[in-house]
């Protein structure tokens, strides 16, 4: 399982192409489930021009790895990849990528969903949005 928290932009499809090459037994995984979250250009009726993501270096990575281990304990998955940005983002850019490889569709979907849900509710990241009305901290209700 690979977890990366990084300032640099990433291309989710290049990440997945590279990860597929790394997976030793390509024929073992019948199912790959992927979620990509991007920065929308609107939130709560306001155009969003930019966003900054703060995190807790060390704890954020450790928490994502824990969520990945939990998913691997609950479902028969072969591998998982989580990439999450921090720092400055512009609309349209990917924020988060979660990918799960499994022999089976059910496990791949369930584990992928579990990781992104846990990430959103528990991983220490905070968004500060810049809109025409000024900067504001996003809330979990956004």
């Amino acid at each position, binding site marked *: 399982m690979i977890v990366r928290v990084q300032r640099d932009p990433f291309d989710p499809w290049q990440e997945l192409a590279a990860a597929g090459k790394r997976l030793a037994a390509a024929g073992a995984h019948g199912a790959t489930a992927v979620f990509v979250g991007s*920065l929308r250009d609107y939130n709560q009726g306001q155009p969003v021009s930019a966003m900054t993501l703060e995190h*807790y270096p060390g*704890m954020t990575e450790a928490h994502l790895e824990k969520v990945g281990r939990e998913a691997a304990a609950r479902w028969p998955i072969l591998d998982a990849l989580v990439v999450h940005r921090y720092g400055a983002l512009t609309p349209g850019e990917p*924020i988060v990528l979660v990918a799960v490889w499994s022999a089976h569709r059910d496990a791949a979907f369930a584990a992928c969903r579990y990781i992104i849900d846990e990430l959103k509710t528990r991983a220490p990241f*905070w968004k500060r949005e810049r809109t025409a009305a000024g900067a504001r901290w996003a809330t979990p209700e*956004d």
Partner: protein
Amino acid sequence: MTPITVRFFASIREDLGKDEEHIDSQGIATAADVWERVAGRPLPARTLVAVNQQYASPGHPVKAGDEVAFFPPVTGGELP
């Protein structure tokens, strides 16, 4: 004595005007004690607490050398 490291993130960092502080562990038993020492008021509702980079309750024991962090609800991933 080894101090306690206290860290603040996001809106709490902005409200307090600081991101990190080191305090003497004398008289500190729990994470809530740490907050009252550094902020001079009770821990606001919904504030999240981590001790040594793991989520903890406000009543979690804290000792010299620990890292205690306070931050608002998290908002990672896509919107919403």
